[in-house]
């Protein structure tokens, strides 16, 4: 009894395997460019260029604008599902380095075209927007968008206030010279107290904050609120805490994503800083 059923099972398995192989030929006519974005900021750019119809997949963190939430999700930021991406048969996949190095290598091996976004400053971001426009057939729109963003940014001048920008409370992480945000803020007049540190997101000690005595604290994460920062041990003597200049109302995505909404973030920051007593516009 055992022998017979073993043989039948093997035979059926073999037939099954053959059937599997035969069904495995997918044919579909391609009508237009198919784009996958693995970077939330690039998703925003694609929508801003009006080319969201080309977007066939993005990550679960791609949440702006509303329409981005409805696009098919291929996974998270660090480890998106390669299978899902390949199944979408994309013509181009937008990603960023160094965080997505692994997925980039995998896509290269499968000979899928990738576009690397790594904006180190505002100008590079504008160049990337123009390049994305070229790739997606929206050159004119990309050009006008980047002009608009450039002009809008120039209009925003900050007073030379010392700011401590917090990305994470534990461990304490701020932004350094290499970061996109630090570059913009410094160029528009603000003083990032850690702009002398090379690293993009340095881990710092609380003594460093106290020593550099910022006038304003900018919280760019959802984990602390103004009141909690005021109570932090060691920060009582700092100017920002004493004068209550702690900003937690700005959505971190507005300033941390290198995309079109950076202007919104900068405007918000500017208006908050201007409305505080004792500073010139």
């Amino acid at each position, binding site marked *: 009894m055992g022998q017979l059923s*073993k043989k039948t*099972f093997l035979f059926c*398995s073999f037939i*099954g*395997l053959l059937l*599997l*192989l035969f*069904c*495995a*030929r*997918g044919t579909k006519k391609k009508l237009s460019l198919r784009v996958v974005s693995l970077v939330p900021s690039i998703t925003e750019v694609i929508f801003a260029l009006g080319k969201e119809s080309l977007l066939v997949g993005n990550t*679960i963190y791609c949440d702006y604008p509303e329409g981005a939430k409805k696009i098919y*999700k291929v*996974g*998270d*930021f*660090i*480890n*998106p*599902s*390669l*299978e*899902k991406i*390949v*199944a979408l048969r994309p013509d181009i996949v937008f990603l960023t380095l*160094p*965080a997505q*190095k*692994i997925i980039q*290598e*995998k896509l290269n*091996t*499968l000979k899928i075209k990738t576009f690397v976004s790594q904006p180190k400053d505002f100008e590079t971001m504008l160049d990337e927007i123009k390049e994305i426009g070229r790739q997606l057939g929206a050159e004119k729109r990309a050009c006008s968008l980047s002009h608009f963003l450039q002009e809008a940014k120039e209009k925003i001048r900050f007073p030379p206030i010392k700011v401590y920008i917090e990305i994470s409370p534990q461990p304490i992480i701020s932004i350094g010279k290499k970061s996109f945000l630090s570059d913009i803020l410094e160029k528009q007049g603000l003083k990032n107290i850690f702009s002398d540190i090379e690293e993009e997101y340095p*881990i710092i000690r609380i003594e460093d904050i106290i020593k550099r005595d910022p006038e304003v604290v900018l919280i760019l994460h959802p984990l602390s609120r103004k009141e909690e920062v005021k109570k932090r041990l060691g920060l009582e003597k700092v100017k920002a805490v004493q004068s209550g200049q702690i900003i937690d109302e700005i959505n971190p995505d507005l300033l941390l994503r290198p995309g079109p909404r950076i202007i919104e973030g900068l405007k918000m920051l500017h208006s908050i800083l201007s409305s505080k007593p004792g500073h010139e516009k």
Partner: protein
Amino acid sequence: MRNNPSLLLFPLIAIIFLSLSLGPGGVRGEIIFKIRLPRVLLGIFAGGVLSFVGGVLQGLLENPLCDPYILGIASGATFGVSLSLLFGHVSYFFIPPFAFAFSLLSLFFVYTLAQVSGRIQKLSLILSGVLISFLFSSLSILAMTFSKQPLAQIIYLIMGNLSVLFSPLTLMSFLIVFIISLILLYFLFSYAQELNILSTGEEAAISVGIDTERLVRMVFIISSLLTGFVVSFVGSISFVGLVVPHIARALYGYDHRKILPASFLLGSSLLLISDIFARTTAPVELPLSVVTALFGVPFFFYRLRRL
């Protein structure tokens, strides 16, 4: 109760089919061969080898809580991964040989440390394994602190996953490693009766005519090599090496001649099932070690209650 472990081959084949055909990409040749088939091969390799080695070590060290990582090899490989990512622009394909080199280094350390006046004893092996584990884990964290790569990526690589993609060169090297591993497993299997007797006590083994020192040395080195192979390719997948041999014992008794092949087949099957679960149930791919632990913990709990 089935008495023939080779019958486990059939569920494994069924699971292989399931693994090849299930997935968000549907049933397409490119996806099956380029993406899923490597996962299946890796899953069989990792699940089978880890479970086999776990079974061997539990018998050798007379400790039901042993897993392949007790000898410190995995932490060496992990350190290799962290170190290779320290400098940013390293190719991802370069990582496995780097990791393996460091697992060999930790093997050397454990072996040297475990010598007590020229002899290797079981207890000193476990102790040095734990020591070296701590050493390399700490060094790994140090490397991660200074790394240019984001932490999340390093952790993802270390925690164990089957989503390795192969270039023709790396595929060739993997197949070579797979074949070498099978040979080493077969070699270990030939000592099954010695392991049986050794698991009843070292004195019993010596008095019956087993050169226990040579056996322990050899098993340790081969087990470490095999563990190093697995961790270098897929990271540290937890629980499989610990739980599967116990399942095998529950089904087939204690004779290593049955448990070791059973562990290999069961381990492969279980890991493939975990992988299917990890990549199809949530919008995000779950870390494999999490799924294996989710399966492993209830089983262990059940076994504990029966004790």
